[in-house]
């Protein structure tokens, strides 16, 4: 699938916003990754922020150092130079444990039932039904089966947006709450539109709540081994594989988090978009082998 040319727009006098496609796709995400990588490699004077997003990206710049039209022309030329080059990514695959249907998100969703499309169902029951799954268990199994790309980090510090690596017809889609909640437990696994998320901090939110992970992903104190390098764990391009855990496993992980010994399974991996698109199921199987092999 080839993408239309990108659409460029100034965000005031300090940003250029680039929409790579109006709809979400892995191709648009990959194009954004390769363009934003090229921009950071060129170290363009005056560019202060380079922010890839799901199917778009933006740069923030100082117009006293680089004229808006000059920068715009540079970004357009980077897009045309890169063309449809082979899209490969050296990244990492990470296992994230999830306790689905946990008591904390359940308590929260019950508190905000009147803001939901279907107050008589839980978020999981609703998500399973509208996506055609016979049971919550089957829905959860699909959520945990295929890996996910981190396609954007943001909203608040360290929150990953995740896009599941399956054919479009298999993608889980759910609407957001009718009115956003004022509370979401920290480390809730959410889903809205076609995107998954992990709420890095407690706060407002509109995504359906599916479960919770014991693994902190944002910590200014950087207490855990995998947060030593930086307080934000996820990067766009990370690949996540969820693992369903039960209450006992969750409590054990939480105890390790508290004594500072909790760690994540992380393996380096090379991802090739064209190979993936040829046969996603086989490719995902290989990715999983990389994660669990030695």
């Amino acid at each position, binding site marked *: 699938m080839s993408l239309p040319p990108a659409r460029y727009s100034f965000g*005031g006098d*300090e940003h250029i916003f680039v929409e790579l496609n109006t709809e979400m796709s892995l191709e648009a995400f990959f194009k954004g990754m390769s363009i934003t990588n090229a921009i950071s490699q060129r170290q363009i004077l005056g560019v202060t922020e380079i922010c890839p997003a*799901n199917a778009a990206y933006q740069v923030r710049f100082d117009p006293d150092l680089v004229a*808006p039209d000059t920068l715009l022309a540079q970004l357009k030329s980077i897009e045309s130079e890169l063309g449809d080059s082979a899209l490969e990514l050296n990244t990492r695959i990470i296992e994230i444990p999830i306790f689905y249907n946990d008591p904390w998100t359940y308590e929260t969703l019950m508190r905000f039932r009147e803001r939901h499309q279907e107050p008589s169902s839980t978020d999981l029951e609703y998500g399973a039904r509208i996506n055609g799954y016979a049971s919550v268990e089957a829905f959860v199994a699909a959520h945990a089966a295929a890996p996910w790309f981190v396609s954007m980090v*943001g909203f*608040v*510090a360290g929150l990953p947006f995740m896009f599941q690596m399956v054919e479009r017809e298999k993608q889980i889609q759910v609407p957001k709450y009718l009115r956003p909640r004022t509370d979401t437990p920290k480390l809730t696994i959410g889903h809205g539109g076609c995107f998954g998320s992990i709420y890095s*901090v407690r706060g407002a939110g509109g995504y359906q709540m599916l479960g919770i992970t014991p693994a902190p992903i944002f910590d200014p104190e950087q207490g855990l081994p995998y947060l030593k390098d930086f307080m*934000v764990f996820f990067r766009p391009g990370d690949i996540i594989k969820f693992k369903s855990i039960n209450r006992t496993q969750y409590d054990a992980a939480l105890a390790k988090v508290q004594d500072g010994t909790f760690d994540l399974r992380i393996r380096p991996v090379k991802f090739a978009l064209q190979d993936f698109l040829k046969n996603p199921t086989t490719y995902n199987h290989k990715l999983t082998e990389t994660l669990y092999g030695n």
Partner: protein
Amino acid sequence: MAIKVLHAGLATTVQDAGRTGYYHLGIPLSGALDQYSFRAANLLLGNAEDAAVLEMTMLGPKLEFTQDALIALAGANLPAKLDGVAIPNYEVVVAKAGSVLSFDYLKDGVRGYLAVAGGIDVPVVLGSRSTYILGAMGGFCGRKLQVGDVLPVGAVTGPSHLGRKLPDQLKSVFPKDVQVRMLPGLYFHWLTEASGKLFFEDTWCVGAEADRIAYRFKGGRPLEFAPRERPFGAGSDPSNIVDAGYPIGSIQVPGGLEPILLHRDAISGGGYAMIGTVISADMDLVAQLQPNFRAQFVAVDMAQALVARAKYKQRVSELRKALTS
């Protein structure tokens, strides 16, 4: 030298020029919302222009100084008293050891800045002392001040400028009715042509939800998005886009109802169509809008935005010239 917090005020935080380079991970710019006033307070004292200060919001704190300190106030007119005696804004005064600084009711603007000679000396986190409350990082323990906090103040290196005042023409004014200039763009073309016009015709009132993250506006006619096929992954509302980054200063209109203008503690991205971005020169003005103040948005092009920016920079350099001696 330290400052003890006796009352916290409504929302008092440590802020500086802000934090650059982490927006792609959801960590916003932060920093003083009214950058001009923040710089004025520091320059009066002879501090580094970007030294950390206290940003006070609507209701000032009550503070006790453990040692003699030179202080300067700028920005919103929060009438200040030292041990019960009124002191002027925009003038370097001495707060004696043990003296207590308090504030009367706000007269105009929203955010006042208190600078102390030597600067507020909290740890630098990712290149800045600014507080980012959503991320519980930076500033003093990553949060608003609370009763009992003790704020460290840095060592004073330069000479004393006791008694120095800011010339009147360099003080900001904070009118109740303002024009806010913005560059239409981003997803502006998703609005119907009629709605695109109405947005600039209507007068918008600042709502109660106006903070460092965002200003919400009310009172204008609802905006209509032109019918279009819902893009895959965008969500079901006509104002939904595939989640993308939000420029600082951008205006989104969820459901077409209430424009939300993101300021320096912006959420860095999300799924609502943005219809344009307030120009950098007018962001200080927005920072001083109280709930129920009225704004009219004025469309400008890039050339006009850059002229306004140059004018703003010119004013900052006049500030430096007047206070660097």
